[in-house]
C-alpha cells in the first residue's frame, strides 16, 4: 500500500525506478534501525536526542528541533541540531508555544510548507534566528495526546516531499511510544516508593487506627463496669483507654506524614525534602540535605526552584555514578540560594556538545530567568558538578503565597512519648494532626 503511494508521487521525477526503489529501501532500513534503537533506550534525554538526529538525517534537513511542551505555554524540553551553541545563546530564551509551533501542537497534524513564512500563524523569527523557508513539522503523539513536536528545515531539494513527511511521521509514531516508555521508566522506581508508602498509610489507617479507636471504647466500657467493685481494675482500664487515645494521635501524625506532598499545600521545603527522600530510597544513594523553611517565596518561585532542583538531581543521579549528592536551600540577607552538588566524575563544560547536558541546563536557565534568578554550573573532570541558583532579595515577593503562612517547618514526623490521659494533642491545635487546609 505504501509502495503504491511512493511510486505515484515520487517515482516519476526523473530518477530511474531502480534507483528510487533502492533509495527508499535504504531510508526504510535507516528508519527501522532508528526505531529499534529508540525503543531500546530508556533514558528520556537520549531518546529525544536520537529521535531528532534520526529525523534530520532521514530527510537530510540542515536544521532540526524537537520540543516537548510543558502544558503551561512553554517547553519542558527543547533540543536543536544544526544551530551552534553560540547562535543558540544569541537567540536567547526558549521558544514559547505560539505561532506555527502552537498551531502544530493544536492541530495534531503535520505541517509541510515550501515557505514557513506563508503560514497564517507565522509571527516572526527572533533576532539571530536563522531564516527558514522549507518547513516540515510533525507532531509526536501518544494515545490521544500530542507529547512533542519535531520541526525540520533546510533541505537540499528546496522543499520537503510527501515522502519526507511520511518517513518522519512513521518515526514520530515510534517516538511517541518510546517517550512514554522512558517517562514511565524514570517514574517507575520513584513511584514504587510512593505506592509502598501509600499502602502502608492505608493499612495503618484501616487496620491499626480503627482497632485502637475501638479499644479506647472497650476499655472505657470495661472501666465503667468494673467501677466501684474493683477500683484497681477500673484505674488500669482507664489508663489503657488513655494510652489507646494517645496511640491514636500518634497514628494520625504518622499517616499524615506519609501522605503525598503538594507544593501548593506544603510548600517548597516539605516538597523538596520529600522528593529527596523518594530519590534516596528508590536509587539507594546518599543525599545530604540542608533545607530551610519559611523562605518567603511566591508559589511561582517555589515551583521554579523545585523543578530546577529536580532537574539537577536527575542529572546528578545520572552522571554521579552513585557518589553522594548534597542539596542545600537557604535564605540569607542577600537572597535565597539553592545548591545541588555531587562528587561524581564531573565534566569539562567547554567540551560538552549541545546535547543532553546542555539541554537540561537550558531548561534550568529558562526556569530561573522566569523568576529573575541566576544559574551557575560549576564542573570539571574529577571534581564533581555543582548547580547553584540564586534568587536575589530584590526578586523576592513582598508577600509569600497564601499557604506559606499557615505552614510550619518541614518537620519530619517524630514519634513523641505516649501520653497518659488528657486531651489528645491535636485537640489543642497541633499542626501535624491537622492538614494546613486547602490552598
Amino acid at each position, binding site marked *: 500500500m505504501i509502495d503504491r503511494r511512493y511510486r505515484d508521487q515520487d517515482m516519476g521525477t526523473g530518477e530511474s525506478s531502480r534507483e528510487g526503489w533502492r533509495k527508499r529501501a535504504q531510508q526504510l532500513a535507516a528508519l527501522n534501525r532508528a526505531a529499534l534503537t529508540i525503543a531500546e533506550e530508556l533514558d528520556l534525554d537520549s531518546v529525544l536526542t536520537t529521535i531528532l538526529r534520526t529525523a534530520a538525517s532521514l530527510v537530510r534537513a540542515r536544521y532540526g528541533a524537537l520540543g516537548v*511542551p510543558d*502544558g*503551561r*505555554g512553554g517547553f519542558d524540553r527543547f533540543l536543536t541540531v544544526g544551530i551552534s551553541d553560540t547562535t543558540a545563546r544569541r537567540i536567547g530564551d526558549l521558544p514559547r*508555544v*505560539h505561532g506555527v509551533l*502552537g498551531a502544530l*501542537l*493544536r492541530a495534531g497534524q503535520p505541517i509541510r510548507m515550501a515557505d514557513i513564512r506563508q503560514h497564517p500563524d507565522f509571527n516572526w523569527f527572533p533576532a539571530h534566528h536563522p531564516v527558514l523557508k522549507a518547513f516540515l513539522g510533525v507532531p509526536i503523539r501518544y494515545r490521544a*495526546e500530542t507529547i512533542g513536536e519535531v520541526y525540520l528545515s533546510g533541505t537540499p531539494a528546496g522543499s520537503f516531499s510527501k515522502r519526507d513527511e511520511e518517513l518522519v511521521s512513521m518515526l514520530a509514531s515510534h517516538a511517541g511510544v518510546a517517550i512514554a516508555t522512558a517517562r514511565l521508566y524514570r517514574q517507575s522506581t520513584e513511584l514504587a516508593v510512593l505506592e509502598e508508602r501509600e499502602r502502608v498509610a492505608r493499612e495503618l*489507617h*484501616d487496620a491499626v*487506627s*480503627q*482497632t485502637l*479507636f*475501638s*479499644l*479506647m*471504647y*472497650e476499655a*472505657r*466500657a470495661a472501666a*465503667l*463496669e468494673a467501677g466501684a467493685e474493683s477500683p484497681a481494675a477500673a484505674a488500669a482500664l482507664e489508663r489503657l*483507654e488513655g494510652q489507646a*487515645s494517645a496511640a*491514636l*494521635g500518634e497514628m*494520625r501524625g504518622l499517616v499524615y506524614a506519609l501522605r503525598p506532598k503538594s507544593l*501548593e499545600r506544603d510548600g517548597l521545603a516539605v516538597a523538596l525534602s520529600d522528593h529527596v527522600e523518594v530519590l534516596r530510597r528508590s536509587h539507594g544513594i546518599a543525599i545530604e540535605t540542608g533545607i530551610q523553611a519559611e523562605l518567603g517565596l511566591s*508559589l*511561582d518561585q517555589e515551583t521554579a526552584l523545585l523543578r530546577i532542583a529536580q532537574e539537577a538531581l536527575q542529572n546528578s543521579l545520572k552522571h554521579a555514578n552513585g557518589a553522594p549528592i548534597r542539596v542545600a536551600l537557604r535564605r540569607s540577607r542577600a537572597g535565597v540560594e539553592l545548591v545541588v552538588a555531587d562528587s561524581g566524575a564531573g565534566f569539562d563544560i567547554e567540551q560538552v556538545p549541545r546535547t543532553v547536558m546542555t539541554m537540561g541546563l537550558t531548561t534550568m536557565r529558562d526556569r530561573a530567568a522566569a523568576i529573575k534568578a541566576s544559574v551557575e554550573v560549576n564542573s570539571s573532570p574529577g571534581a564533581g558538578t555543582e548547580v547553584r541558583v540564586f534568587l536575589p532579595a530584590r526578586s523576592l515577593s513582598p508577600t509569600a503565597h*497564601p499557604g506559606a503562612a499557615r505552614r510550619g517547618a518541614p518537620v519530619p514526623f517524630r514519634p513523641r512519648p505516649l501520653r497518659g490521659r488528657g*486531651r*489528645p494533642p*491535636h*485537640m489543642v*491545635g497541633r499542626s501535624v494532626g*491537622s*492538614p494546613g*487546609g*486547602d*490552598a
Partner: protein
Amino acid sequence: MPEPIRILLADDHEVVRQGLRRFLELQQDIVVVGEAGGGRDAVRLARELEVDVVLMDLVMPDGDGISAIRQIREQTPAAKVVVLTSYVDDANVFAAVQAGAAGYLLKDVRPEDLAAAIRQVHGGQAALHPDVATRLMRRATQPPGAGFTPRERDVLRLLAAGFANKEIARKLAISEKTVKTHVSSLLQKLNVQDRTQAAVKAVRERLVE
C-alpha cells in the same frame, strides 16, 4: 424517665461498631437500635427503626456517607446525623454539613465526649470537632475567591467570559483535561454545582474583572 436516644451505627469496620456499642449501651439514656456496614443499609435502617441519631462514617464501600446523609435527611427528617470519621478536609466537612449533618467528629473523640455530643445533637444543637469548627469559620469569613491559584483565576476569568473548556485550553495553552481539573476545583471552592452558576457567582461577587 424520658425515652432513651435511639442510635444507629453506620461504619464498615465491625470492630468499630462493636466498641461503640459496648460503651454506648452502658449509658442510661442511650440505646443502640441497629448497625449498618454501608450507606445504603444506613438509609434503610434509619427509616425502619425510628432512629434519633445516626453515627455515620464517610468512606464506606457500600454507599458513601455524604449521599447517605442527604437521603436520611430527606426520608427521615427526624433523624439527626453525626459524622464520625478519620478524615478532616475541607471538601468532606463542607459536603457533610451541606448534606445536613448536625455533627462532625473525628475518630479519636473520647468516649465521654462522644456521648455528650450525641445528647447535644439530639437536643437540637450542633457538635463539631474544634478543627472542623475552625474550617467552617474560616470558610464563612474568608473573602470569596481568596483560595484560588493564579491559574484557577485565569480559568475562571475565561469561564465567566463564556468560553468552553476547549477554547480555554487553547487560550491558556494547556490541555483540556487540565482545564477540567481547574474547573472542578473552582466549582468546589465557589461552592456551586455547575459552570453557569460559577460564572454568575464570579461576576456577581466581582471575582473577575
